[in-house]
């Protein structure tokens, strides 16, 4: 299959890691995968192309307006690849009615200049196949396709047993694990959850160790958010100082797993919109590659459906402090849950699986033989 990813890629944000995984997995499986456009100097491992000949599927990976190429590339793309071979994966829930949750949203004109109908028109015009990274899309004409996936090869320390993992985890010294908790991700629609996490962690912070937040805008609300009146990038510097939280700027996509593994625990947060829609992100899977115990700050039924039943053990529920101290005291059952979950993810959420799903989804609508 010749698969063209149409999206903007930035070494520091959004889905650049998944784009790399699609390319790597494609190579192993005998598929040709490239990103549409000119080569990005900071992403040498990612092939780019403007050659539209023989493209089987153009997968429009849509998060922000910039994921559509600018002219003249846009016209060449839309005129060069017939609509039947175009597929949209709507990673941020744009192809829905307008949703407002807490401070989160799927459309906001004052942020990107576009109204809900404009998103709907654009995505619907590009393709008749709209996919969303959720197990249960809200709209009947949208299909489930998670896009992101789990790459077992990227697991930093693939332990053979929970006992081995727990022992290594206990033995890790301050040089190896300088933090108790590490979260890598920008402060975008996550503050309320992080704040609740901090409050839950407060009673056990001495035992667990310091928290490090790695990503943009944790230290202060950025000026652009103040000017636009956006509360989704709120923060509380005094609370962070009181709990001695270390704040660091964001890291490149290829440093995320390593930085996450610098702590004993790695929480997984999904922004309110994504929780509502049941969306996954790259970090949903990538966190399980780090040498850290994931703390799934997600609904239990979602966790069971996505990660498998074993992963429910990694959901702290209302007693975060109890969860963390129990894991500190008895790490083996938690690592057992991690290893079982890794197996589940490898089986059901690998990128090879994603290729099969994409092929099946496109085969449903394409004439036979359209996709090689």
């Amino acid at each position, binding site marked *: 299959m010749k698969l063209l990813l149409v999206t903007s890629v930035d070494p520091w944000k959004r889905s650049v890691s998944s784009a790399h995984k699609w390319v790597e997995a494609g190579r192993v499986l005998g598929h040709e995968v490239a990103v549409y456009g000119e080569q990005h100097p900071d992403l040498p491992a990612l092939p780019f192309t403007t050659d539209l000949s023989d493209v089987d599927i153009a997968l429009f990976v849509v998060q922000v307006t910039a994921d559509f190429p*600018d*002219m003249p590339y846009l016209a060449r793309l*839309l005129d060069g690849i017939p609509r039947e071979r175009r597929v949209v994966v709507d990673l941020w829930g744009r192809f829905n009615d307008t949703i407002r949750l807490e401070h989160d949203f799927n459309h906001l004109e004052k942020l990107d*200049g576009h109204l809900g109908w404009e998103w709907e028109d654009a995505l619907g015009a590009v393709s008749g196949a709209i996919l969303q990274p959720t197990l249960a899309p809200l709209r009947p004409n949208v299909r489930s396709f998670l896009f992101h996936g789990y790459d077992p090869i990227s697991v930093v320390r693939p332990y053979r047993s929970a006992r081995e993992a727990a022992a290594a985890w206990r033995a890790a010294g301050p040089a190896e694990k300088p933090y108790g908790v590490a979260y890598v991700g920008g402060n975008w629609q996550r503050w309320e959850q992080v704040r609740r996490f901090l409050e839950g962690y407060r009673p056990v912070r001495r035992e667990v160790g310091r928290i490090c937040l790695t990503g943009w805008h944790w230290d202060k609300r950025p000026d652009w958010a103040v000017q636009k009146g956006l509360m989704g990038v709120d923060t509380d510097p005094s609370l962070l100082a009181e709990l001695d939280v270390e704040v660091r700027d964001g890291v490149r996509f290829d440093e995320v797993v390593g930085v996450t593994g610098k702590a004993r625990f790695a929480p997984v947060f999904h922004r309110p919109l994504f929780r509502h829609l049941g969306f996954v992100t790259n970090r949903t899977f990538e966190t399980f590659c780090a040498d850290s115990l994931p703390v799934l700050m997600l609904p239990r039924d979602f966790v069971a459906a996505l990660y498998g039943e074993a992963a429910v053990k990694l959901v702290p529920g209302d007693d975060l402090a109890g969860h963390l101290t129990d894991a500190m005291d008895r790490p083996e059952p938690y690592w057992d849950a991690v290893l079982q979950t890794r197996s589940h993810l490898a089986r059901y959420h690998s990128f090879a699986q994603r290729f099969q799903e994409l092929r099946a989804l496109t085969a449903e609508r394409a004439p036979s033989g359209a996709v090689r």
Partner: protein
Amino acid sequence: MNILFVMKHRGNAGNTHAVANYMRVAPRYGHTVAMYGDPQPHLPHLKFSTDVRAFDRVAYLFESELYRIKPLREVALLATIPKRHRLIFDMDGMYNPVIELDGYDSNHCSETERARWIEYYDSLADRVAKPTLAPPNNQRVRAMIFYGYDPILEVDPASAPPKQYDILHVGHNWWRWREVAGSLLPAFRQIRDQVGEIGFIGAWWDKPPEEGPAAGPEEAFRSDPEVFRQLRIRTEAAVVYTDVVRTMSAARINIFTQRPVLHHLKHLTLKWFEIFYADTVPLLMLDEDLAVAVYGEAARELVLPGRVAQKLLDALRRPDHYRGVVEDVRRHLAAHYSYDRRFEELVAAMRN
């Protein structure tokens, strides 16, 4: 056929007026024409639409900037109407080699800039139409005059406004100054005491655009308010397209100038036609051959270059004679430039 025009919404621009005429004529032939965008309160007579699925053809009209609609709207439009059903109107001669006239007006400021335009056009549409009398210089190009003449819009002298001016120029100061300063102002100085009010109505005669360099080269907006003051020339702000003809009718003589690069390319603009709707005597700063090619033989009498002062005085002194000349030109325009004919050409171009 349902045709959507993508163009800048400028109520005081000739192209808007022309498209308004296409909107008016289209239903007679079972077609629809609209302009892309949300309804504009200041342009209540124009039909706007953002429902791209209601259209099957799109005409992009570019002047001296690559007008773009919002990114997601552009995606929807390009994904809905394919390249073979898109047509570009190249109104300011950008789809040409770099042309620079005497170190003054030019279509592009550099080869790099030109390459950007050509790449953009070539990706957007298969065909480019130019409102010119010149034969096409490229197989992708076709000459389409675009503008038309509708006798019903001629102003009846009985209903014309009082003649406030003896001499008037209606149009923006966009690459006009060299001709105005070089030919018109010396003639005005020569005969100033023999004529009444002189006026220039349009943008940028007093000062350049407030946007600064983003609006275009400084030279394009050059003016000299002090010379205007010395010659007792009044300036007034631009008027919306619906008021252009009536405004022109407030003068005994209207002077027609054209941007040099467009004159060089033999491009026509709406002003070529609407000046003959007005109850006035149009006097033309045009090459005689070009004027005759468009307006017919009678137009020789209205051409100004080389005899500006003499012609202005003659037209003021013999209005009946010149009114007859204008009538001859109007008959020629009515016979050859109806919007019905223009619209047929548009539909034919869109069908190809």
